[in-house]
């Protein structure tokens, strides 16, 4: 089992843990935590294929990871601002109680 395999298995496990969290939790912030874990697993995959890939284009993986980190930071800021605004209006962050848009 090579180092690339180990890193890919680790990234897959991290992604699936984040997916389970995003599917099972009922609090909006905890769902966001699961999404952050999935984004980080994708970053680990980028770096694994950069490090152990067959034709290493110089610095392709790190550039991808840099842009991904910047976009994830923006996503977290906007998502948490939305959660704070929803909490101010509905006094809850439980997802099943925020059902005003349900038809």
């Amino acid at each position: 089992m090579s180092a690339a395999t180990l890193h890919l298995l680790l990234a897959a496990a991290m992604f699936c843990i984040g997916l389970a969290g995003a599917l099972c939790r009922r609090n909006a912030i905890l769902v966001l935590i699961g999404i952050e874990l999935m984004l980080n697993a994708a970053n680990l995959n980028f770096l694994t294929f950069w490090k152990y890939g067959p034709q290493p284009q110089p610095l392709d993986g790190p550039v991808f990871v840099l842009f991904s980190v910047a976009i994830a930071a923006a996503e977290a800021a906007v998502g948490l601002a939305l959660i704070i605004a929803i909490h101010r209006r509905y006094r809850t962050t439980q997802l099943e109680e925020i059902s005003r848009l349900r038809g």
Partner: protein
Amino acid sequence: MPPEPVLSLAFAIVAGLVLGGSVAAVSCRNRVHAGLFLAVALVGLALVFLRMGAEFLGFIQILVYVGAVAVLIVFAILLTRGSDSAHERRSNAPGIGIGLAVLLWGVLAWGILHRSPGAIATPSPPPSMAVRDLGERLLREELLPLQTVGLLLTAALIGAALIALPEPGISPRPSGSHGSAGTETPPSSPT
């Protein structure tokens, strides 16, 4: 391959940190603890990056994720804690989500272990990352995406502040703009 064994003790420790922190972050019932366990998992991932030779990205990971995103999540948990019950109720059917995740991991692991042998081979010169090369690449070939990301971060900063501003006449709590302070810091850090 470097002379060190593939499954070294260091990799086992950092992988345990990542997986243990992730599991605790999604399964902990106390929300503040969940946010702090997320920080533990992200520190572990930064250590994985450092071991892979991507030092700059490891430190970026600590600066942006641990220093900004995890702290911001803990702030949001603390700000929204008052009204809900202290402990979250369990999901109706957590088995479905967990089963889906386990199934997906099984499929991914099968694919990773049964890939064609030449798909991933360690290149003869292992790639290294010099920050100087990364900077030149970003400022020459990737200049337009870099500027676009800067624009995106500015828009996210303004949008987060606008969304979190208290609307007049809605907030029943008299204490004013306590939501916008925490959301303004993280987008500026990666630029």
